[in-house]
C-alpha cells in the first residue's frame, strides 16, 4: 500500500498566504481585500509588498464583496479574505447577485472553515459553507487538504476565470502532498489504490482518510483513497470508476452532511451507479468550543470514525 509522510504540521491558511505572496510577484492584476483579519488570513506579506494593491475594508464584509465585484471591472483579480462564516453566510446575497449572477472574477478565500478553529465556538465555525457556495450557479468550490495543496490551489484559481470559493482552515495539520505541485481544478487525486472500499475525502479529512486506510490495511481491508479537493465541479468519473471496482463508498468532510461533498457524491452515484454510501460529516448540528482534536472526536470526523464507516459500508454491499 502506498504511504504518505507528514513533512511537518502546517496550517492550510499559511498555504494560502504563501500562494498570495507568490501571486503578488507574478500577477500584477491580483488585488487583495481583507475585513480586519490580515494576520488570521496570513495576508501580511502581500500587504507589505504591495500596499497599493491591498485593501483593508474594515469589519464590513458585504462592502468587501461588492468592492471586489467592482474591481473586476477594469481587469483586476480580487482575492477577498475573512473567516469562512463571514465569507459565505453573512454575505450570501452579495455573492449571489454581485459576483455569481454577474459572472465576476472574484476569489472568495475563507479561513477557519469547519469545526477546527476550535475554542471560538459555533458563531465562528461554519459547517454549511460548502453547501451555500456549491448551490450558486457558476461557482467553483475548492477545499484543499494541506499547506502545499492550498498554496497550489491559490495559484491555480488566479488563472481560472470565474468566481471561486477557496476554503481552508486554522489548525496545523499534516503536510504530506508534494511541494510546488500542479493543481488542476476539478481533477480528483488518487492517493491510494484499493479494492474493498472507496474513501473520498476533502480538506482536513484527507489525512484522516490516509490514516484510516492504514488501519484498515492492518485488518486486511484494502481501501482506495481519493482526494476530492474540488467539490464543484466534481470529478464524477473518478468516483464512478472507483466504486465500479470497490462497490461501496465512504465520503468524509468537515461539514454538515446536508449540502456537503457527500450529497454531491450521492447525487452522482444514484444517477449513474447506485452504491452503498456512508457519510463522515456532522449531523445537522452547530459546533461548539473545544480543541480541534476534541471536536473532531466528538463529532466523528477522524480516522477512527472513517474506519468504522468503512467496515459498516462493506457489509452493505
Amino acid at each position, binding site marked *: 500500500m502506498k504511504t504518505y509522510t507528514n513533512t511537518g504540521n502546517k496550517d492550510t491558511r499559511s498555504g494560502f498566504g504563501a500562494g498570495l505572496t507568490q501571486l503578488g510577484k507574478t500577477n500584477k492584476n491580483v488585488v487583495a481585500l481583507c475585513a480586519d483579519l490580515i494576520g488570521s488570513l496570513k495576508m501580511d506579506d502581500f500587504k507589505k509588498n504591495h500596499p497599493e494593491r491591498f485593501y483593508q475594508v474594515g469589519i*464590513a464584509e458585504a462592502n468587501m464583496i*461588492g468592492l471586489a465585484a*467592482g*474591481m473586476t*471591472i*477594469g481587469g483586476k483579480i480580487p482575492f477577498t479574505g475573512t473567516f469562512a462564516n463571514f465569507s459565505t453566510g453573512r454575505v450570501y446575497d452579495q455573492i449571489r447577485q454581485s459576483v455569481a449572477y*454577474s459572472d465576476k472574477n472574484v476569489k472568495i478565500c475563507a479561513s477557519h472553515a469547519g469545526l477546527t478553529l476550535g475554542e471560538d465556538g459555533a458563531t465562528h465555525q461554519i459547517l454549511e459553507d460548502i453547501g451555500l457556495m456549491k448551490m450558486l450557479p457558476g461557482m467553483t468550490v475548492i477545499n484543499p487538504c494541506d499547506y502545499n495543496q492550498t498554496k497550489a490551489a491559490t495559484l491555480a484559481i488566479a488563472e481560472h476565470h470565474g468566481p471561486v470559493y477557496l476554503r481552508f482552515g486554522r489548525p496545523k495539520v499534516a503536510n504530506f502532498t508534494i511541494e510546488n505541485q500542479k493543481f488542476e481544478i476539478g481533477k480528483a487525486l488518487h492517493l491510494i489504490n484499493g479494492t474493498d472500499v472507496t474513501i473520498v475525502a476533502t480538506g482536513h479529512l484527507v489525512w484522516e482518510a490516509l490514516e484510516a486506510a492504514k488501519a484498515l490495511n492492518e485488518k486486511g481491508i484494502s481501501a482506495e483513497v481519493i482526494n476530492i479537493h474540488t467539490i464543484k465541479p466534481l470529478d464524477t468519473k473518478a468516483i464512478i470508476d472507483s466504486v465500479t471496482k470497490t462497490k461501496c463508498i465512504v465520503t468524509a468532510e468537515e461539514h454538515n452532511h446536508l449540502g456537503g461533498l457527500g450529497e454531491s457524491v450521492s447525487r452522482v452515484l444514484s444517477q449513474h451507479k447506485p452504491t452503498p454510501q456512508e457519510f463522515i460529516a456532522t449531523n445537522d448540528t452547530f459546533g461548539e468550543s473545544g480543541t480541534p482534536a476534541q471536536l473532531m472526536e466528538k463529532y466523528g470526523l477522524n480516522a477512527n470514525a472513517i474506519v468504522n464507516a468503512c467496515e459498516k459500508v462493506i457489509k452493505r454491499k
Partner: protein
Amino acid sequence: MANTQQLTNLTTQVRRDILRMVHKVNSGHPGGSLGCAEFFVSLYNDIMDRKEDFDMDGIGEDLFFLSNGHISPVYYSVLARSGYFPVEELNTFRLINSRLQGHPTTHEKLPGVRIASGSLGQGMSVALGAAQAKKLNNCKHIVYSLHGDGELQEGQNWEAIMYASGNKVDNIIATIDLNGQQIDGSTDDVLPMGSLRNKFEAFGWVVIDIPEGNNIEAILKGMAEAKEQTGKGKPVCVLLKTVMGNGVDFMMHTHAWHGKAPNDEQLAIGLDQNPETLGDY
C-alpha cells in the same frame, strides 16, 4: 453633446418607451423610471464621456452603475437610444429568452450593463470597487452611480459610504434619487431617514443638491458642479430631488406606480401627454 431641446425630446421619447414597455408585459416599475428620465438622458448624452462600443472593463471612459435595478425600463430605453443595442429590442422587455430581464443583469450579455442589480443596497460598493480599479489603472475617468432614497435603508450602503471617504475615493459621483417614495408609502412613513445631506457630510462626502431633478438644465449644472468636486480627496454625492412618475400626471407624487403597469386606457392618456418625438420602437 446635445442641446437642451434635443435632450427634452429624447426624454419624452424615453417616457413613451417606459410606458409601452411596462404596459406590454403588465409588469415593471414605471414610477421611479419616469422620475429619473431626465437624469438618464442627461447622463448618457451629455455628462458622461463614454466610448461608442461597449467593453466590460471600460478603461478610458466614464462608467455608470445602477444600484436600484428595478428602474430598468428607463435604463434600457436610454441604453438602446444611446446605441448600445437596437431599440427594437425594447419589445422583449421581461419576456422569456430576453436580454432585457426584469432587473438588469450581465448574465445575458446585454451591452451597457456591467453588474446585476435588483437586490438593493449593493451598487455603491460595486461602483467604489470600479473606481478603485480605475485608480490602479491610472484611468482618470469618473464612476457614476444611482441609488434610490429608500434603498439607503440597506445597511451595506453605509459600510460603503464610510469606506469611500476613509479611503479618499474621489473619482465617484453617487447620485441619490430623492423621490421620497418607496413600495409601502413615503420614505418618511416607512422609515424616516432624516437629513441625507447631514448623513453624507458626517461620513466625509461632498454633497451637491439638485433641487429640480426633473429639469435638464438644472441637472447639467448640478452634475458639472459635482464633477468639479472630484479629484479633491473626497467622494461626491448628488441629492437629486425628483418627482416619481414625472411626465404622466396621474402617476406623479405617489408611490402607487412604483411597480404597477398602466392599463390600455391609462397608457393612452400617458402617451397623449408625451407625444412621439424620435419614433417609437
